[in-house]
């Protein structure tokens, strides 16, 4: 990956000023990047920020964090070519830590509830249902 800084004269010479003739995304992210993202969502517009794939083609940057969802299809193969892996294995924000913890607990509770219902152990099922409701309230931000 290489970024190139062009002066006015060179950019004219290379046709950078004509956005249709030149994809900055290709230059910044490697040849084929612009095409790749186009493949995924030809006419799509990000519902959060209004960014389109042609904007990506021009700038090589995305509009907002929601663009990663909007253009996920095209981005997938782009990221795969660009990085070591396709999934983040590094730092988790504390908030994400907590969400994972809560969703793990939710899964356990739901499993137990199903088991309790199957065993016709209604007393325990009622208690589990209460716990699930409480957890749901915690998971939905107020």
């Amino acid at each position, binding site marked *: 990956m290489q970024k190139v800084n062009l002066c006015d004269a060179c950019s004219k010479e290379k046709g950078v000023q004509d956005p249709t003739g030149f994809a900055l995304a290709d230059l910044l992210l490697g040849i084929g990047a612009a095409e790749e993202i186009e493949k995924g969502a030809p006419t799509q517009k990000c519902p959060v920020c209004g960014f389109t794939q042609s904007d990506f083609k021009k700038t090589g940057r995305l509009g907002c964090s929601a663009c990663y969802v909007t253009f996920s299809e095209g981005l997938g193969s782009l990221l795969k070519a660009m990085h070591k892996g396709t999934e*983040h294995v590094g730092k988790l924000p504390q908030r*994400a830590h907590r969400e994972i913890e809560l969703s793990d607990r939710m899964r356990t509770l739901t499993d137990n509830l199903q088991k309790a219902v199957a065993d016709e152990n209604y007393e325990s099922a009622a208690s589990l249902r209460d716990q699930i409701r409480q957890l749901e309230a915690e998971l939905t931000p107020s």
Partner: protein
Amino acid sequence: MKFSNIMASGGEWLRGEGPHHQIVVSSRVRLARNLRQRSFPGWAKKAERTQVLELIKPRVEELPEMQDSFSELLQDLSALEKQVLVERHLISREHAAKSVGSAVVMNRRQTLSIMVNEEDHLRMQSIRSGLQLKSAFKLVDKVDSTLESKLDFAYDSKLGYLTACPTNVGTGMRASAMLHLPGLVLSEMVNQVIQAVNKIGLAVRGLYGEGTEAMGNLFQISNQTTLGEKEEDIINRLSKVIETIIEKEHDARQVLIQKKSNTLWDQIGRAYGVLTFAHAMTSKEALNLLSIIKLGVDLGAFPEDRRLPIDELFIDTQPAHLQKSSQQKLNAEERDELRAQIIRDRLRVFPKPDISKVARESGNDAASEPPNQ
């Protein structure tokens, strides 16, 4: 803290006290973060950028690490002041081009610098002297953990931290070290090293980052990828590669001393002569010659206590520092004159190179050969 305070003190990393400081000038780690549901700075309208700035800046200023900090909106800094910060690697060239809606906050020691609304909403950078990537990471990681409890960072369980450019997604981390490699350059081996480093997914760049030329035999090595690898693993991998390059540089210097000593002394003598007597000098020429003098100090041809004045000249002779210290705007010709004058003044008390003081094993910490074979 005022801008004049920044000018007055060189910043911790410039004092060159970190491990392997002869070869590793500085280590930097930066993290990119963004707020959820907000347009990235490059796409946001001015009003939204200002909103984001107002959300982030107070949180940054109240960090315990930022007590006694320098905090400034980019529109309140002159072009020259911005350039001074670029020359000290405290802001990026890209950030220097920003105005309304962007800010920079840094601590007094100049070890921590946070850019608001650069390419991402937040770019947090720690810079240390010598090879200290781990401690640089520790500092930004701590700052990041404090800020995330107060700001809603864009994070995806699969892709990690979401950034404006897909090349930064995941950890949002770029770790880099600035290496001084005159031995490898003089023995024409540096391209081989660069190619090998590129092959294993690390990037090598010039003095001021992407797309800049290598001057003064200074090279920046950094990680290229940010997704699919843990922060600590990236830093360990990078540190190991840098340690290998340090060894190669020491080896190259020993080979030069043993097999091409005349070329080496000629280079050092010429650099000393030109720097001591020239009356006009471009910053590129100054960097290249100062690099050879720095090598001379490393090898023992100049006394060790001459190291700091040389290291300081690397920064003080940069165009913006020159103009800021003379308190006037200078054209290129005037700058070249002033630069030569400053260097002459500082080298007036500098002893002549003494090659008899050069030890075969130059007293460096990474011994490459046993003494007295």
